[in-house]
């Protein structure tokens, strides 16, 4: 354990991998049949740039998780193409790892077995993988909890264990669907720092979905703002803030606030549209707004 830590080169070197670029071109997806048919994604096109952290933000229920299922290959688009480094996505594959909106740690495995699941399933366990597991356990602060089952971990620990479980597989693209939703504010901010740290160390392609504007700005290199359902990209903002970022500096940074206001302006319009489409959307709108007012006040 400590041997790995003393050789920082080894562990963190391990995290560096060949990242890939993903492209979504003219993708549409509907669910349901006949008059119940609902167009969820409509002619969406965007690029998840190589070695960048792309954040997608959009109103709740607009179709973000649907897009993630298409990126991951769990579902096929009705039309359009999803490609990774130019090759069409055919199904789930370890080169695109998804961290799910709801915790998907296996409840019947302890933390260590969960993290090691990928390598074990593929029969790729060697000393290097084991060392990497230790490195990651340490990195996400779960060394003491390696033998605990998920039900014995707090929400924040579960999310970190999931990050580690994904990282160990050298995915070429990491896809995260609102991974920190439902955590309390303090834990959430801690998680942003953990996650941003992991990203900065590996610089692999990351695609991160959220409904939280502060989370989006803190993490993103590029910010995709989505329209309401049926969703497509409404705007792309470059978040050209220096890394590593610090939450306090970000709050005071004019550039960060400028980006935030621009994003909120666009989101506002989308949220207004979503108002009529039901309770979930309305509450999301409220969330965004109360936050905005709080920060200003």
């Amino acid at each position, binding site marked *: 354990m400590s041997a790995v830590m003393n050789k920082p080169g080894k562990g963190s070197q391990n995290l560096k991998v060949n990242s890939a670029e993903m492209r979504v071109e003219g993708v549409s997806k509907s669910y349901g049949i006949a008059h119940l048919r609902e167009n969820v994604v409509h002619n969406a096109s965007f690029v998840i740039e190589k070695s960048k952290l792309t954040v997608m933000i959009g109103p709740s229920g607009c179709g973000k998780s649907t897009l993630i299922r298409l990126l991951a290959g769990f579902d096929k688009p009705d039309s359009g193409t999803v490609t990774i480094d130019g090759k069409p996505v055919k199904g789930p594959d370890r080169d695109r790892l998804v961290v799910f909106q709801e915790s*998907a740690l296996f409840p019947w495995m302890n933390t260590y077995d969960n993290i090691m699941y990928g390598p074990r399933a593929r029969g790729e366990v060697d000393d290097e993988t084991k060392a990497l597991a230790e490195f990651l356990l340490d990195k996400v602060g779960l060394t003491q909890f390696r033998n605990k089952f998920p039900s014995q971990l707090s929400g924040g620990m579960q999310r970190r264990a999931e990050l580690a479980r994904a990282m160990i597989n050298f995915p070429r693209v990491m896809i995260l669907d609102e991974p920190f939703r439902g955590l309390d504010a303090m834990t959430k901010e801690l998680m942003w720092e953990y996650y941003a740290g992991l990203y900065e160390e590996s610089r692999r392609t990351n695609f991160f979905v959220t409904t939280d504007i502060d989370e989006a700005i803190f993490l993103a290199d590029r910010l995709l703002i989505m329209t309401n359902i049926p969703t497509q990209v409404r705007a792309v903002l470059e978040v050209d803030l220096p890394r590593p970022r610090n939450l306090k500096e970000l709050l005071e940074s004019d550039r960060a606030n400028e980006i935030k206001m621009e994003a909120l302006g666009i989101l506002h319009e989308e949220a*207004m549209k979503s108002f009529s489409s039901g*309770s979930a959307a309305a509450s999301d709108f*409220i969330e965004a707004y109360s936050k905005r007012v709080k920060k200003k006040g």
Partner: protein
Amino acid sequence: MTTDNSKTGVGQGLDQAAKAALLRETMPFKTVPDATLRRIADLAKEETLPAGTRLYNEGDRADDLFVIASGKIEHALGPEAEASKLVKMVKRGDVIGWAALLSTKQRRLATTVAEADTQILRINAQKLRDLFQNDQQTGDMVMSRFATMIKEDYTLPDWLAKTRSIGEGTVARSEAEVPVSESRLALLGYRLGLWVKSPKPYLMITGFTAVLLFWHFSVDVFEWPRFRNMPGLVEVITEWLSRDPIYGLSVWTPEYYTHIIVSIRRVFIAFLLATALGVTLGLFMGWSKGVREFVFPVFETLRPVPILAWVPLAIIIFFHPESTVIFLTFLASFYATALNTMLGVDSIDESYSRAASCLGANKWQVFRHVIVPGALPFIFTGLQISVGVAWFSLVAAEMVSGEFGLGFVINTSYTMVKYPTIVIGMITLGAVGYTTSAMVRMLGDHLMQWRVRELAMGGR
């Protein structure tokens, strides 16, 4: 000040200050700066609605929003609005008709009828939006307050939302290790302690005592007509513990144990077979749509057929009494296990299989690493039912065929008028059956330690 709307009457002329004061009382406009509030007041047109006037209907075009100045209006949302309360009464200071503020799809979501003579302010939403266009800061604030107001109608009741967030918060915040004793023995001791301290054991003892007393009094003391011919408690206990039993069966006679062992053996074999086949079939039925469509209809057709209806066929097929009994014992257990296992597979959250396949597991690995452990809790529920059912069917089967076993004892004792022996057989059956299902439960707890801990943390 009058309006051109023919439906409504003429107001009594609230001035700008009075309108502003009313707006100040409302949730959305409470915190608007004075200057802006006066400008909103200028947009507000006063109207009077006689009792019974319909202000708007669900689905109407929405152009204006309304502030109630006096009187009351019934506000009824359509059933599909997912609101916590569909019908409410609005009065002075309430704001209705916010759908007009949406930039698209401005349709009324509710139907509103004046319940009494009502005075309202009508505010044109487009004009309000234009006004906010020039003062975005205030606009955002008002919109956010609107949102909060709407949220109260659309989401969980407040007290419930609060309890939920407290629950989630504590879990998320406790980064420290949850103190759960590692040692199973300690856990067992802890639970035993809890059990002894809880009212459970005393209620259990009371329950047994009540039944025994009822038995004793109804048969031996009061000699109630229908109970008089039953063997009494004292008689049965004496016979059961007698070294020289009148009817030939007691804890001192070897036959007693032969019967028990024969029955246990049959149940054991039948239960093992039922588990092996039932779990396998259930897993595949749950896992593969093809297998399910193929097997399930047949399965569901055969399942309601009672064991006793199978007896003749079973005898014809197996001929040998031992196999017949085992087959009959097996059947009902098999159904229970297979069905529960299938439900167990259905209960597994799809995200686990997705996570596994994302991590590089192939189909077979998903089956072994996700489907099987994920279904385990249901499987063990099924197995507990299945042992119970096995004893159940065993007795039926032994009554029909076979030369030994507890069911056989009960049946032959009846024909040979050995009434106390019947009861001895029944009590023994109950005790042995209870023990076997407890054993299954313990095995389950052992195999699913991740759940034992989960439950222990839940304070059970």
